[in-house]
């Protein structure tokens, strides 16, 4: 059975539902992060985005991010849902929920997860803007690069 904490889906995302997955009686905090499709990027007027994933590896990247975050913040529970396909302005592209007994670990784990997704997760956005389209290319996906991983941790302290 697939782990409902980690999903790649064409369905609209529901932050409340993702938060519910990680909630438990001993957690006093849940932090959620929602990434939203914006109408502007690099001076271009964005019309919509098309997300593409290498789904089995994307799921494994989420599991890996969970393991990395769990080493640093052992008390957290983490879920990541990422949407693919065509997304319009205002649609949620990614939802992260992190539960923990206290708020610092929930905020930190949430921040770490989004930074790490942007570094290693095999998902790509194809931006359709007024006048053309372009594949957005960010980071070389190398989860073994410890220097890059340290940069993600540095965002969380």
């Amino acid at each position, binding site marked *: 059975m697939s782990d409902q904490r980690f999903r790649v889906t064409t369905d609209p995302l529901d932050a409340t539902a993702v938060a519910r997955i990680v909630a438990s009686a001993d957690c006093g905090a849940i932090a959620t992060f929602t*990434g939203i499709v914006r109408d502007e990027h690099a001076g271009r007027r964005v019309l919509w985005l098309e*997300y*593409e*994933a*290498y789904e*089995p*590896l*994307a799921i*494994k990247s989420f599991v890996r991010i969970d393991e990395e975050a769990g080493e640093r913040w052992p008390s957290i529970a983490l879920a990541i849902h*990422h949407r693919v396909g065509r997304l319009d302005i205002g649609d949620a*592209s*990614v939802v992260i929920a992190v539960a923990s007994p206290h708020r610092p670990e929930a905020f930190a784990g949430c921040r770490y997860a*989004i930074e790490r*997704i*942007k*570094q*290693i*997760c*095999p*998902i*790509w*956005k*194809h931006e359709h803007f007024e006048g053309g389209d372009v*594949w*957005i*290319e*960010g*980071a*070389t*996906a*190398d*989860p*073994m690069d410890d220097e890059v991983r340290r940069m993600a941790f540095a965002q969380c302290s």
Partner: protein
Amino acid sequence: MLVTIRLFARLREMAGKGELRRELPDGATARTAWDALVDEFPGFDDYSKAVSCAVNQDYARMTASLADGDEVAFLPPVSGG
């Protein structure tokens, strides 16, 4: 050996499809497969420095050895989130 090659985003568009089958020599690595693609498709060499790879749906190094039936995926720089 016969391997399946998976391509994504701009690499997929430049190759015209997301899944290819290619015959590679014994002892081939992910790098061997990549070099063959660079010879075959104009534009791929632009990605030789930034590309990363996965073998059988796990992150791998370009030095990873391939075997008959393997799936090797080449990942252009990612932009999820």
